């Protein structure tokens, strides 16, 4: 099994975190958070991959046929739903921050005390 998908997942995670750390815009922060979550999709799908396997839908193939792991696909779907909820909510909060504080640059938002 190739290690490439795992390296890709790690790379996406780090790229997302790098974006969050250096970001100057809260909307960008939230999108970077989605990028880090994409790393989990890649990782999960890579784990379930079987060489030569098809999609785990048994309507037109024999139940004994070789398929990729359906469990991780279910997990990925759940994960996407979670991501949609969190992203929508965080974007709404970013809009509120923009309205109430007049900026969405984390550097200018600093003091919370």
């Amino acid at each position, binding site marked *: 099994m190739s290690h490439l998908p795992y390296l890709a*997942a790690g790379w996406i*995670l780090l790229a997302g*975190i790098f974006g*969050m*750390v*250096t*970001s100057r815009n*809260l909307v960008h*922060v*939230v999108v970077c*958070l989605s990028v*880090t*979550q994409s*790393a*989990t999709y890649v*990782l*999960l799908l890579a*784990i379930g991959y079987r060489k030569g396997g098809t999609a785990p839908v048994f309507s037109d193939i024999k139940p004994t046929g070789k398929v990729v792991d359906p*469990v*991780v696909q279910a*997990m990925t779907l*759940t*994960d996407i739903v*979670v991501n949609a*909820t*969190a992203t929508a*909510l*965080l974007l709404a*909060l*970013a809009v*509120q*921050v923009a309205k*109430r*504080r007049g900026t969405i640059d*984390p*550097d200018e*938002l*600093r*003091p*919370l*005390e």
Partner: protein
Amino acid sequence: MVQAAIAAPVLIAIMLAAGGRRLPRPVVDAVATGTILAVTVLLGIVLATALRHPVVTWLGGWPPRGGVSVGIPLVADPMSAGLALLVAVLTLAALVFSWRYLVEVQAIYHALMLLFTAAMCAFVLTGDLFDAFVFFELMSVIAYVLTGYKAEEPRTVHGALNFGVINSLGAYVTLMGIGLLYARTGQLNFAAMGARLPGQDHRLVTVAFALVCTGFLVKAATAPFHFWLADAHAVAPTPVCVLFSGVMVELGVYAIARTYWATFAGAVPGARPALAFLGVVTALLGGVMCVLQRHVKRLLAYSTVSHVGVILLGVAALDHDSLAGAAYYLLGHAGVKSALFIAAGTLLNRFETLDERELHGRGLRLRASGAVFLVGGLGLAGVPPSGLWAGKAVMDEAAQRAGWWWAAPVGVVASALTAGAVLRVWLRVFRGVGPSGGGTAEHEDSETGPRMSRLPWTMLTPGVILAGGAVLLGLIPGLLHGVSHAAGLFVDHDGYVSAVLSGGAWHAASAPLHPWTAAGLVGGAAGVVLAAVVAVLGLHQPVPRILRPVIDRLRAAHSGHVGEYAAWLTAGVALFGLLLFTA
């Protein structure tokens, strides 16, 4: 029974969210409180059953076949059922407090509180790691919404956003760890994974443990993952803070303990020193930050950080007695901290500010709130027979046996700093001691709408009961034995695996615990005396000059900058992984 306790609040919440707008507020209050009351009774029955023998329920009738499971179990052992019951009791207190306190909220607030309760209960009761992740995210998302409930205030939305971003990031790292475990074992169930872990490549298992723990450590506000906590607690509505500090944060530690004993047990030798190190740093850092605060809710938030550090230290010893002590400590802390937040809420209600100096001497006539602050401060200091004292004494004795002589002093320093800060607030606000003035006069919304001439009983009774109960916890007969029994079952990895996978027997070898020892009493006395010293010094002397640069650094690190928090999180994961490998 177990399913009903989770499903009932969800169903009622949906109905309230759909039709609550048309109902008058008292009806909404009655429905929400009644539901939680029913859940409390249900979970009480579940706990009583679980104390005789733990209950494993397979959802949808999908039991495992031949050790392979695709279903999701709910496992009610005394520890998980007890924690779920604690969640329900605290929600009940928070809802009763909200009746008069949050006048302007709509039915959607009640719906969110019910969903929050259901998510937390499901999180502790589930026996499946991925399911735990889903409920972790559900409770987190509801927590973000509740934090940002007063969306008109700039500080509120900023705090909620920081909370949301950091917690979600932690959760995704956890999910990557879950993926690695699944890749190795082909299972998602704690027990089934645990049964297949022996013999796996230990490097991969260690990395998976580090990743899985990350999200839970963020939730548990362990340094350096703790930055979100104070930002969120300072701005969330007070009844929500009761749930956050009282139990949600502690669920992070519970999840680490559960994952360790049910799945990893013995497979990660570095876990003991690594978790202990994080616990010590968190306990001390939280204590120092707590003393430095002037905003009462922020102060209480850092005190939570510190105490959760102590609980993590208790869990980190990875033995039965210490875990029982930690559980007892958690129970005592939940009561005291909830009561303190409720009392802080009454201050905010009366004076529309939470700045300690601004409030100087203004609480003289709020006798009940003052009493709660005094009792709460003493409780945090570890005065016998409070729950914190009993738990601490048991943990210290276990640590002593393990050769961790430094654990007891760390605990005393943490309680002295946090309790000292609370007692300082009591002296300044409720007794009018010390120099006055110097407040920044930052106005806050009182959260209540119109000001009341007298505080209604619904805003006082929950705090008084919780504080009183927590301080007398060490005297309740049988409780210590029950906690010891729960811890005995909790640490029995083989029993858990066989009970979940094949319905086998699960018996605890519980030893009796003795908090009433000379060392325990000395520890409690030392905590109280040092707390008094910290309180009196804090009234007159701000910060010694030599410490200024260090303090300024610490303050600057807690900047409210979300990017910095993310960087700290990444550094924390690296540090935790390094500790796991080297120790």
